[in-house]
């Protein structure tokens, strides 16, 4: 079995199983662990609406925090959006998702995929440089660095494979698929679960603030 056959077969299969099982495990594991409803009265007539609204209102730092956090907020958004468009927008990825789910949609031209992939990688590098240069702000753990590498590898290997740079194409493709498999398997057990947690975290804070304090 060649490296590519292994990557496309058992490796990606196992990693997707781990990812799906892991996400289900952690999501339900936390959500079923609720402490019960908040029996206090909400602060105003809006009730819990303002609480749920916080999921969206916290998408951008508020008022006095806007200026000092502007750079990293913008770069982080650029990274997330570019990566998302690359993952769901380029034709080989759509083929893979279609083979799994049967859903399909038109893809981007290759030059756009390369441009967005490069932007995603550049923003990722900008973010790690900021993390490394400001230890007082970022109190980084080993998990932060490991996660950065695991996220960067599919971007780097994908761009190299497409550009036919580095090892032979089928080897680079195998490495790209293997690094994606690693990312999938690692995701549920790391900080990358923030993809799901952020909704509940913000909602919980919002609901708590909607109940705390004097009625207005």
């Amino acid at each position, binding site marked *: 079995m060649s490296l590519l056959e292994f990557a496309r*077969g058992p490796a990606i299969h196992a990693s997707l199983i781990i990812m799906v*099982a892991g996400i289900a495990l952690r999501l339900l594991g936390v959500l079923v662990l609720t402490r019960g409803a908040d029996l206090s009265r909400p602060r105003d007539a809006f009730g819990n609406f303002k609480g749920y609204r916080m999921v969206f209102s916290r998408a951008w730092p508020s008022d006095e925090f806007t200026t000092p956090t502007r750079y990293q907020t913008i770069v982080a958004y650029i990274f997330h959006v570019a990566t998302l468009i690359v993952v769901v927008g380029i034709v080989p990825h759509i083929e893979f998702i279609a*083979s799994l789910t049967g859903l399909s949609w038109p893809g981007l031209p*290759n030059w756009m995929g390369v441009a967005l992939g490069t932007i995603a990688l550049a923003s990722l590098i900008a973010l790690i440089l900021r993390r490394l240069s400001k230890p007082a702000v970022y109190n980084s753990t080993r998990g932060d660095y490991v996660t950065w590498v695991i996220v960067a590898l599919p971007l780097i290997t994908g761009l190299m494979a497409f550009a036919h740079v580095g090892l032979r194409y089928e080897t680079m493709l195998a490495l790209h698929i293997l690094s994606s498999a690693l990312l999938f398997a690692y995701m549920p057990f790391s900080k990358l679960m923030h993809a799901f947690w952020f909704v509940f975290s913000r909602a919980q804070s919002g609901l708590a603030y909607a109940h705390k304090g004097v009625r207005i």
Partner: protein
Amino acid sequence: MANESTLGHLLRSQGISRRAFLKFCSTTATLLALPAGVAPAMAETLASARRPSVIWLSFQECTGCTEALTRSHSPTIESLLFGFISLDYHHTLQAASGDHAEHAREQAQHENEGKYLVLVDGSVPLVEHYSTIAGISNLQMLKDAAAGAAAIINVGTCSAYGGLPMARPNPTDAVPVGDIITDKPIVNIPGCPPMPLAITGVIAQYLTLGTLPEVDDLGRPLAFFGENIHDRCYRRPFYDRGLFAETFDDEGARKGWCLYKLGCKAPVSYNACAHVKWNNGVSFPIQSGHGCIGCSEPRFWDAGGIYQSVATGQFGDGAKLGAAAVAGAAIGAGAALLARRKKARLDAEDHATQ
């Protein structure tokens, strides 16, 4: 042809001018990426080449490789060259049959000990009774013939990598020739069938220089298998622009757009089809509207569907994924419920003791 003593005599008697012959030599030298100065030496040596003995062993094959080679347009210098070789044993082309044929083979092996070339098409079954010739199993005949051979050339994917007989579930336990013979120089010329020019190119190099061509890590001559078909495909601009045929005979297919979504394996296939083409440069599968099936790659029959693109995973349906999701959810929810019950129990105990 048996009366011509050298290749030069043969070609002249067939009306091939010296000029045409020199052109052939320089073209072949260029194709094999040999230095320009080799062409005159090649002409000199080829013209005075004596007929080498070649034994062609056909095992678990479909004869497609022979068909590809002998169907090249005649008369071309390639086919004459092939006719010049003393083909002492070939099931399809030989006149003799039965004991006579086998004796001819044994005699050729004996007389040319250490100097004859063995060309093999078809894979070798390890369960020996599945394929025999004159009562001799393929495995045995291969070992006998290889013992006194100068080199072995595997013609076609079956002998080079196992091919169709070795595809799942491999009922005959077929293996490539390279798994059996490990002590002789082996060149693989894969393809289903291989490019005729690749076969004659390797033989031409062997006749003139006495060496086998430079090969890649799968034993394929770099001159013909060193490049990705995707890199030489004339439809590449459409791949780059993201214009794909979605089904056969749709608008994209009629406009000649890229066949990536219809399962074209060109990005992971190495062969000369896209620039040398077939039938004297007429066309090749992609030009005719069908994606490359990757026939020069090992295990290509088992590498997923012919119409399934390179980017898809190879794991059947997603049933296991569904099961994993349910299992994960059950374990997670179960663990959380147990934790809540334990907390409630501990709280109750606290209240009871107070």
